[in-house]
């Protein structure tokens, strides 16, 4: 909307500038033309003046000097001198059809108009009046008679003419501009919608119908592409869902019979422990299938999130207690460091627990000789995020293998296949963080331990006010 007003403003300013320029230009041009037309060749009044000046009387004989004569010749004009009695006393090239005497009435008539259709001009002379006549039809004579009030208000009229012109230009530009905007608005709206990945249809009409059709075409194309992408994602997701579903039934049988055998007292201890191994592996497979399903759902943004405010310190205590209660091997020391009780996030509790548990389990799995695992929460005031960090002081991993860890196993982005574990763990944690508009950062080097930090947007703690 803002851009539309801006366009309209610029359009009006430009139109008015153009109109003013045209107006001034036309005025100047008109002035120049009239001025030029009046001064084309010798103006009749100049000719008649010259003739009057160049006509000399000496001893009753008239003589016209050569310059005046040339002037008459150039204009194909004739001339005569009428004395105070109305007689033609001198003439030059006077047409034969003209009378030789004129009454006062005749003189006053042709002074204003024509003498027998000849445009004539009159000038006074010592001996009477000099009349210069031009060929018939060569000149038009106009009398301009204007009231003085008209002349005195002339500047005002010019000014008001200018004002009226400007107002007219403004109005016209407003009308044209708004019509243009009206035809542009659906287009701009459509393009904005396109940018937001919405479906767009603009009725193609008016001068911009071509553009509207292209925008519609682009929208259809985008929609088709996103649909095909979506259907492909869905197909993959379904495929994984179906596989993980179909694995569950046979897995039930393996798990069921293996755990029955494990508890069967008729079997030898060795056979029972072998059945136990089958059961453990089947359970591993079960968790793997669950992870796979979750990762693929997160990957295609199909995992529904049950978000609620969660205090990270509470979560940390709960997870650590759970690990210790479930018999954490004494080679591992699991600790919580100086928690900020205020930090809260809006998150799916089960997923967040799964992510953090996974990080701790990673540290345990990759350091069979034992290590110290430290849980920290911190708040970053600069961007209102908070971090949940799991750090161990174990053997770590080389720096250039780090980026591989966040890619899915067997993905083309992964340089080397995963070495231990199924390799889904860290990608899953990263995707859980991403599903919460957060991210996972990992750092490590050989012999320097491993550190994973889940960064999440934090929410303002209402307890802060209370406490």
């Amino acid at each position, binding site marked *: 909307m803002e851009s539309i007003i801006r366009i309209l403003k610029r359009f009006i300013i430009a139109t008015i500038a153009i109109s003013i320029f045209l107006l001034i230009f036309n005025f100047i041009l008109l002035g120049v033309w009239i001025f030029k037309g009046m001064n084309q060749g010798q103006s009749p009044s100049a000719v008649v003046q010259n003739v009057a000046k160049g006509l000399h009387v000496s001893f009753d004989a008239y003589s016209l000097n050569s310059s005046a004569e040339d002037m008459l010749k150039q204009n194909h004009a004739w001339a005569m001198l009428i004395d105070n009695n109305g007689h033609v006393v001198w003439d030059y090239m006077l047409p034969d059809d003209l009378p030789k005497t004129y009454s006062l009435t005749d003189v006053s008539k042709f002074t204003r108009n024509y003498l027998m259709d000849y445009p004539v001009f009159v000038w006074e002379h010592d001996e009477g009046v000099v009349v210069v006549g031009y060929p018939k039809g060569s000149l038009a004579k106009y009398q301009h008679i204007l009231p003085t009030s008209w002349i005195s208000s002339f500047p005002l009229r010019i000014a008001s003419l200018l004002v009226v012109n400007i107002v007219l230009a403004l109005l016209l530009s407003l009308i044209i501009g708004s019509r243009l905007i009206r035809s542009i608005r659906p287009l701009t709206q459509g393009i904005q919608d396109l940018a937001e990945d919405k479906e767009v249809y603009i009725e193609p009409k008016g001068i911009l119908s071509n553009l509207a059709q292209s925008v519609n075409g682009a929208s259809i194309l985008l929609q088709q592409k996103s649909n095909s992408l979506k259907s492909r994602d869905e197909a993959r997701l379904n495929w994984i869902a179906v596989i993980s*579903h179909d694995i569950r039934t046979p*897995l039930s049988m393996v798990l*069921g*019979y293996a755990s029955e055998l494990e508890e069967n007292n008729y079997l030898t201890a060795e056979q029972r422990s072998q059945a136990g191994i089958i059961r453990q592996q089947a359970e591993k497979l079960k968790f793997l299938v669950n992870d796979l399903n979750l990762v693929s759902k997160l990957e295609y943004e199909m995992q529904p999130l049950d978000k609620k405010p969660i205090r990270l310190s509470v979560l940390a205590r709960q997870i650590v207690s759970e690990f*210790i209660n479930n018999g954490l091997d004494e080679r591992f020391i699991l600790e*919580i460091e100086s928690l900020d009780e205020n930090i809260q996030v809006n998150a799916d509790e089960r997923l967040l627990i799964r992510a953090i548990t996974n990080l701790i389990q990673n540290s345990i799995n990759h350091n069979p000789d034992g290590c110290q695992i430290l849980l920290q929460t911190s708040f970053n005031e600069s961007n209102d995020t908070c971090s949940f960090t799991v750090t161990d002081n174990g053997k770590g991993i080389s720096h250039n293998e780090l980026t591989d860890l966040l890619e899915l196993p067997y993905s083309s982005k992964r340089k080397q296949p995963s070495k231990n574990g199924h390799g889904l763990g860290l990608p899953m944690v990263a995707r859980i963080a991403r599903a919460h508009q957060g991210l996972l950062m990992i750092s490590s080097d050989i012999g320097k331990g491993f550190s994973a930090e889940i960064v999440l947007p934090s929410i303002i703690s209402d307890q802060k006010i209370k406490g």
Partner: protein
Amino acid sequence: MDDLKSKKLLIVDDEREIRTMIESFLRKEGFTRIYQASGCAETLEICRSIKPDIAILDVMLPDGDGFSLLTSLRQISDMPVLFLSARGEDEDRLLGLGLGADDYIVKPFLPRELILRLTAILRRVYLPPKREQLPVFNLGERIIDLEGGVVQNDSTEYSLTAKEHALLLKLYENKNRIVTSDALCQATWGDDYYGYENTLMVHIRRIREKIENNPSSPEYLLTIRGLGYKLMVKEG
């Protein structure tokens, strides 16, 4: 208890091997009247003729889904139902429980878990309800009587306040396991640990004065630094 073993059980699953496996587990547990069905129509028929006391339902069946089967079952029977499904999504679980199922187990499952949950449902539904007795247990020479709300030493008797009682109950329910301060505060005050740190500490000290021989170096109610507390109870 033997009463429960004579209940009529119905297993509904489209996979014959799964039905056979579950039946063998149940027989081993002492259940004798076990029926099988492989689809919705068969299930409804058995329900009309045999009237089983409990059903284990699969969700994906060849002639319909378990959810709608449950809905139609409800018109002829009020028996408890346990879903056993390969569909483990939250939505499915909530849908099943929302329809009035008594439990929802996701495949793959451990047979022991299935049997424990099944008998729990049977006991809840078919055994006469008895008033829940609160535990009475020993800590050294002292008897902690949560039913009576007192701690008895051979010479003296301390009564427990409501909050002390609630804390001890929560700790006893999770005996020999760490209970986080958050869980304790949630159980006692229904609120987060945040803001209750000092209150909790005061209450724990008072409990120790009643149950410990030497409250300043406790041997039963232990502090787990940074996490919470743990009540050490010797079994038996």
